[in-house]
């Protein structure tokens, strides 16, 4: 084995330590500024933005007795399930469709116009219609999440397939690969990096529309916490829900990056 692959872009260990020190310092400074402006300095009214104490209090209330009809764990589970279902559905439908459009001009001619027509409509603009179709239940929200995550997945799969180096396809053909082998052995692996770029965008889109969908109508979930907390003028509760969305979003992105590293080990 010719040495393990390096991961450039991370630089020398010393530079890396320096960078994490800067990142950590910035987080500490932000937390300090938060504490000072909302607490001792009294620059910001706690109704507009919670102090760390308010946020902690809200978090405690959420975890043990619960708030807005459920405990934090239940709300998170609800939101995660919606994101998970929508994202998986978008992956399973968007990627094959993108690959189909990328490898067949005919399929592109049929599908692309519909796609171009639907794409400018913001996914949240579908919410009213989906409520009429599916009611306020899970199905409506999964549908909207799927809709938001679908286009980045499909478009990137399409772009990935279209940008496969033609010399690699030629190399496969002159070494005896059939059309099917060219697709499975060359086109799909070559497009994987672009496909994953699409999935990262999809995942972000999932979180964005999820909260919007839950704001409109739901019985649990992080968006539901926010809408109830607005009624209660509880800024601490809103803050906790937002922080949960941020942390979960980061956690899922990290998980996706792990999957990518496993699926695309040859990437420099």
């Amino acid at each position: 084995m010719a040495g393990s692959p390096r991961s450039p872009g991370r630089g020398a260990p010393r530079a890396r330590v320096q960078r994490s020190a800067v990142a950590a310092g910035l987080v500490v400074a932000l937390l300090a500024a938060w504490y000072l402006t909302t607490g001792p300095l009294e620059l910001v009214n706690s109704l507009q933005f919670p102090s760390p104490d308010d946020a902690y209090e809200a978090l405690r209330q959420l975890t043990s007795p619960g708030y807005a009809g459920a405990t934090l764990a239940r709300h998170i589970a609800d939101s995660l399930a919606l994101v998970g279902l929508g994202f998986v559905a978008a992956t399973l439908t968007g990627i094959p469709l993108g690959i189909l459009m990328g490898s067949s001009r005919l399929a592109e001619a049929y599908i692309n116009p519909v796609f171009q027509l639907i794409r400018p409509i913001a996914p949240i603009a579908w919410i009213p219609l989906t409520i009429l179709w599916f009611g306020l239940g899970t199905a409506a929200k999964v549908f909207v999440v799927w809709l938001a995550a679908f286009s980045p997945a499909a478009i990137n799969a399409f772009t990935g397939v279209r940008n496969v180096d033609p010399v690699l396809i030629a190399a496969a053909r002159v070494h005896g690969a059939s059309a099917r082998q060219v697709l499975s052995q060359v086109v799909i692996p070559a497009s994987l990096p672009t496909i994953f770029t699409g999935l990262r965008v999809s995942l972000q889109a999932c979180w964005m529309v999820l909260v919007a969908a839950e704001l409109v109508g739901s019985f649990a979930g992080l968006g539901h916490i926010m809408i109830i907390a607005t009624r209660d003028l509880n800024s601490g509760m809103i803050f906790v829900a937002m922080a949960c969305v941020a942390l979960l979003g980061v956690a899922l992105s990290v998980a996706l990056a792990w999957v990518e590293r496993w699926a695309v080990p040859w990437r420099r």
Partner: protein
Amino acid sequence: MDEVSFVVAEREFVAIVGPSGCGKTTLLRMAAGLDFPTGGAVRVGDRQIDGPGSDRAVVFQQFALFPWKTVADNIAFGLKCRGTAESARQEIVSHYVALMGLQGYERAFPHQLSGGMQQRVAIARSYALEPSVLLMDEPFGALDAQTRVGMQEELVRLSRINPRTVLFITHSVEEAVYLADRVVVMTRRPGRIREIVEVTPVRRREGWDACERIEDVMDQESFVHLRTHIWKLLREQHGASAH
């Protein structure tokens, strides 16, 4: 391209030289079945070519290795497509790994190798199929001068151990004379054959094969003579097109 017609005999190494734009790469792509002539035909044996096939494997200038496959899997690619059994495949792969000096790199990915090593893998990938014609499209064009010389010597060694029918495109006259049995000299616009230069009789007579190193061959008066002859053919048309 116009009125280009020549025959490559079995186990013969034919090089095509010509100015860029003379259509030598197009010629090779037609032989590979990647492009098609507007008139005329390309045949292997009695069969007219109607598409790519593993009987005419190509070594590309850009190596064209599959970045997601290890060295061993790249070499095994064509065999796998062909449906060669696992055990036979492994045997052939390890044979070519040893022959090309790639031992210890079987599990490496292409990006971990130098250009010269990558091209060895690509050559092994094509040789492993034992194609009836091996097509090489400026295979050493992307390598630095030293690596290039090493690979040229390697190819001569390989052709002696395992002689195959080879069609080799290059713009290096030295490379063509050093490697080939015959050199096809082409002209530009229209791409035509200017002359087909026989190298083998000279090589045999002057005992080039006794020389271990490329520079010893290139020092021979007979080599210089042939090289100058081809250069003049190429320069003639260059002068003509400058008018």
